[in-house]
């Protein structure tokens, strides 16, 4: 930039630059990616009722027996209010921890309540595990694609994320072996493998029972911890849950669970089940972060588990989500023959692959104009790939809205294909001068 100057050759007026933020020089390096985002701004429209949002991951809470829950919680507060509104244990309510054992038993896990740490959603557990294991530059292995909220945590702790090839049966053991070998030979320090084995977010796939022991064995051999994140495991449509990886290995796995998908995300109650020594560090780390998880929220969950038929409620959810999954798959089959997608047998998400040459991030503004929202695939990769992918969620809109959303989405894809035909294959060249690395997923409250 050149600056016009006065006749004397000097900038004639005293001028002060301002960055509107007096703390610019003070921020930690890890905030470098915490920027405003064009993609994030587009999601603001998704909250409007005119827009069919296939973007968010909000469970369909209207299916909860709200009157029953409200009455139970009112009784709990009236009889145990002094405990519910007081500070509680840093590790979490002992009663709830016993109940969590029952929940985990459904997936074959046998454990002690002492080894459970209750957290503010499993997202906090993810943060705590990353905090106690990761130094800047350490490697975290994960599926390709991976849960966007986990990638955000890994980025905040300056971990290097290494994606491992995954297919319809989840992580590919051979690919994991090769990835580890490559990283070790490059002198990298691998700390843990982060995996969502059941009804993966965003891929919608499940790690097969045959591969689970293979993955565990590979990690054991290389002294790599497995971080098993399992928010969706009980939301299978057509079969009993597979045995959790933690049920096959007590020492090699930290298991994360959550009530956000099976009960209520607004309560923010999740947990970590960890080997004894790890658990001790997690408790100390959690106390330094939040002192203790909300006693009120924990006792609400505990009351719900004790007084409501929560297993029947999960069945209701499964039936509902199955119907919506069917509506989405049928609509995609009928209206989007140019694309391919995964066939989830549980959970919330379909992972779609667009025809070669299309860019899901670049076409999001058009989708918003057409009143449909989705999450571009790039949000789920730490390496800048995923342009051809799209995460579509079927958990929140009803089947009719899903069909309408897919119809609109198919129209957007059609227009993009016409642009592709006109301009030919093109590379995403925006990396040169346009911003990148900014947040590419909706805020939690934007379905």
């Amino acid at each position, binding site marked *: *930039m050149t600056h016009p100057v006065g006749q004397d050759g000097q900038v004639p007026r005293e001028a002060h630059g301002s960055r*509107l933020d007096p703390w*610019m020089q003070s921020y930690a390096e890890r905030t470098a990616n915490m920027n405003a985002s064009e993609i994030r701004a587009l999601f603001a429209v998704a909250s409007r009722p005119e827009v069919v949002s296939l973007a968010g991951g909000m469970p369909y809470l209207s299916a909860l027996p709200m009157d029953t829950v409200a009455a139970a919680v009112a009784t709990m507060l009236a009889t145990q209010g002094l405990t519910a509104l007081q500070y509680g244990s840093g590790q979490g309510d002992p009663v709830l921890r016993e109940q969590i054992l029952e929940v985990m038993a459904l997936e074959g896990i046998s454990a002690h309540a002492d080894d459970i740490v209750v957290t503010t959603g499993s997202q906090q557990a993810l943060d705590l595990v990353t905090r106690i294991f990761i130094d800047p530059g350490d490697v975290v292995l994960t599926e390709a694609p991976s849960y966007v909220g986990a990638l955000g945590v890994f980025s905040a702790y300056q971990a290097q994320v290494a994606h491992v090839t995954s297919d319809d049966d989840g992580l590919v053991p051979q690919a994991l072996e090769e990835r580890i070998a490559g990283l070790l030979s490059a002198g990298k320090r691998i700390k843990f493998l982060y995996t969502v084995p059941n009804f993966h977010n965003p891929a919608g796939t499940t790690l097969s029972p045959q591969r689970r022991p293979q993955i565990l064995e590979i990690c054991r051999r290389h002294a790599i911890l497995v971080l098993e994140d399992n928010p969706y495991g009980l939301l299978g449509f057509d079969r009993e849950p597979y045995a959790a990886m933690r049920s096959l290995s007590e020492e090699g796995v930290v298991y994360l669970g959550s009530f956000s998908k099976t009960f209520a995300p607004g309560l923010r109650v999740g947990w970590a089940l960890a080997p004894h020594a790890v658990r001790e560090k997690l408790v100390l780390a959690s106390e330094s972060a939040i002192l203790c998880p909300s006693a009120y929220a924990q006792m609400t969950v505990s009351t719900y588990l004790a007084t409501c038929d929560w297993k029947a409620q999960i069945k209701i959810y499964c039936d509902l989500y199955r119907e919506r999954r069917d509506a989405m798959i049928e609509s995609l089959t009928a209206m989007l023959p140019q694309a391919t997608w995964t066939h989830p047998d549980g959970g919330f998400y379909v992972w779609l692959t667009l025809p070669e040459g299309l860019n899901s991030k670049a076409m999001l*503004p058009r989708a918003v104009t057409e009143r449909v929202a989705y999450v571009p695939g790039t949000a789920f990769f730490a390496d800048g790939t995923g342009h051809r992918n799209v995460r579509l969620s079927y958990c929140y809109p009803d089947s009719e809205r899903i069909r309408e959303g897919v119809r609109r989405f198919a129209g957007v894809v059609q227009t993009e294909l016409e642009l592709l*035909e006109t*301009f030919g294959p093109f590379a995403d*060249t925006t990396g040169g*001068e346009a911003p990148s690395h900014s947040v590419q997923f909706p805020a939690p409250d934007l379905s």
Partner: protein
Amino acid sequence: MTHVLVLAGGLSHERDVSLRSGRRVADALARSGAEAHVHDVDGALLAAIKSSRPEVIWPVLHGATGEDGALRDVLGSLGIPYVGSRPSSCRLTWDKPVAKALVSAAGISVPAGVALSHATFRELGAPALLESVIDSLGLPLVVKPTRGGSALGLTIVRSATQLPFAMVTAYAYGDIAMIEHLVEGVEVALSIVEDDHGQAQALPAVEIVPDGGVYSYEARYTAGATEFFTPARLSGSAAASASAASLTAYRTLGHRHLSRVDLIIDADERPWFLEANVSPGMTETSLLPMAVEAAGLDAVEVYSGIVERALATH
């Protein structure tokens, strides 16, 4: 106590920015003693206007409905005074090629450029047309949708290989894309507000120096990502010609009450008109509030003065 209804949100790509702008305006008006409420543009709006009968409506809407004149037509038909330019003026400004042509005819320099639809490329063949555009305009280029703000869909193109993706990016926001030669120089924004006598006053130019060189969405709304100089580091004569050019654009486009004009000042101190905004951003990182402060004015007084102008000019 003046009752003001601030309209913010809407369904445009700039909904988020508008909501933030609207809250800032309403807060300032409330501090001035007005009764100010914020309302979204949705199916409940007309009923809310009819039941609450505000004395003035301030549309702080960015993007389509808010800036293309349509909503202001509706407000006009309701007979309620509103802040900002009239519908015809909005339409001329909203369509950037039209605004450029008018401002150019008024003697202000504008970047050489073309506005092309996807259909034009399909009919004439993209490779040949892109080559011809590069030949005639020369690199570097700016590609952006003809409508909309906040730099959404904008790309700076420095090599021919970047152009196809830049076109597709712009078309994701609208049917017609502008391709302009990038004028190198100092990027400035001139905010204009009417004084108590209805005289348009250009506030001090704000100079924009984004970290990445492009005043993108991220650079606009991440505090700290752009360095601003208020007043701009211009010579006295350059500042005067920038101010004069912005007022010419304001009058040529028929603006009213307030607007913002974006210019580049080249090395010869010549101002180049880029675009104008009838509903400038009013967020915590926006240019008009910055200019108000640079002028030594109080935002609360300026905004309440604008409301008074809307009442007086109804």
